[in-house]
């Protein structure tokens, strides 16, 4: 089932000199990041470091003050007002998974996954439902299709949210602490799905506090603090032998918990 991973290395996501401030609160200063096709980048760092903000800037949920974002060839310059077509194309290339799932509570699970396909990709209802069922089966949730999200556990809801994003055929999946709102045992279900996704060659950027995932699944680890990237590289190396004092302090705090 697990296909061999193809890593061609061309970047799917490129972020250059991203900066953002809320009023006088500087949240990001000069963040640059490149995510090669088929790779998994994990982002860790203390609370308030700006991890979510970087992720949310990537698909323009948050408007950066300056810098440049390119996903799958669709480039957006923060200085200029984004051209709506380009913005739509960029967002179509990036699937996003949130900490709190953000499923649509007034629609069945199937509709949650099918509606975006119908509206954004213009698929027919039947085509969309077929794709949705295929993904639900892959997530082990085929029996939940006709339920409302509130009837599903947190772990199931998060897998549904992953299916919803995957259904649009994104080139990269962005995860913002996908397991932080879940009990550890339930989080495992979600991490399994993410691991499998990584194995099939999906490009992923994952903000997480799950050190095991960061160490075992990620190809690159990015450590952020105070609005900047302080360290990045091979996960094993950083976790074993962090170069930066701030990283050491953060890892100590996380691992001693």
């Amino acid at each position, binding site marked *: 089932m697990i296909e061999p991973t193809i890593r061609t290395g061309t970047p799917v996501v490129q972020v250059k000199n991203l900066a953002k401030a809320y009023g006088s609160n500087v949240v990001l200063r000069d963040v640059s990041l490149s995510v090669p096709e088929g790779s998994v980048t994990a982002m860790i760092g203390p609370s308030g470091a700006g991890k979510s903000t970087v992720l949310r800037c990537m698909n323009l949920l948050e408007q950066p003050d300056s810098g440049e974002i390119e996903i799958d060839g669709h480039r957006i310059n923060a200085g200029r007002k984004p051209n709506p077509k380009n913005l739509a194309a960029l967002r179509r290339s990036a699937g996003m998974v949130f900490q709190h799932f953000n499923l649509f509570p007034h629609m069945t699970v199937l509709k949650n996954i099918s*509606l975006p396909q119908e509206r954004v990709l213009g698929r027919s209802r039947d085509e969309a439902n077929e794709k949705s069922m295929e993904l639900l089966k892959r997530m082990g949730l085929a029996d939940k299709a006709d339920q409302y999200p*509130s009837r599903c556990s947190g772990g199931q809801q998060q897998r549904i949210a992953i299916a919803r994003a995957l259904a649009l055929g994104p080139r990269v999946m962005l995860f913002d602490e996908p397991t932080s709102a879940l009990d550890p045992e339930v989080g495992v279900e979600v991490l399994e799905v993410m691991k499998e996704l990584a194995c099939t060659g999906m490009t992923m950027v994952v903000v997480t506090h799950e050190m095991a995932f960061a160490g075992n699944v990620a190809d690159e680890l990015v450590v952020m603090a105070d609005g900047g990237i302080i360290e990045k590289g091979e996960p094993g190396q950083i976790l074993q032998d962090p170069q930066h004092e701030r990283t050491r302090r953060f890892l100590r705090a996380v691992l001693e918990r």
Partner: protein
Amino acid sequence: MEMLRAIAIGLPLTVLVTILALMIGTVVALPIVAGLRSRNRLVWLMSRGLVDLLRGIPPVVWLFILYYGVSIGAIRLTALQAGVLGLGVVAAAYLAEIFRGAISSIPKGQWEASSALGFHRATVWSLIIGPQTARAVVPAYTTFAIGLLKDSSIASSIGVAEIVFMSSQYARQSGEGIMVFFVAAGVYILLSVPLGLLSRHLDIKMRKAVAR
């Protein structure tokens, strides 16, 4: 029997005034909500001012102004028109606030997921925010409708022959005094109780489906 006849004659107008004012209020509330949510300061200020003006003046005064004060060319509003219009625009102000509250009660994540998925604005409103707002608004909306049903009696002050108007006329003519008003009260209750029940039924049904 004469008494019941008087009330029966008033009943359709009570219902008509209520329904028309509610319809006007609902429709007019929508642009006001848009204004209240606007990021343009001037638009926001004007909408805010309009809501406060409409709510700040007693409805009966609005009816007097519309009935006695407004003449467009040779046209003057009839009592029914003035009553419906006056109650309608005042309702719009209250409903705008109710809608605004319901919209802002929808979690930010719904907007974010919609944007991240790449929905157009129209899709977000019609399929994501709109339906959830409609559900959130049911209890407050029916409470308001029941209030409006009773407030429609204000239209009697400019001579709309609804239940209260007919009742007082009957009381004066027959000299039977208070009795007719008890009957009128009973009719109002008969009208509003089913509305309340329907609202609760709807609310529970929708909550069951999408309990959050």
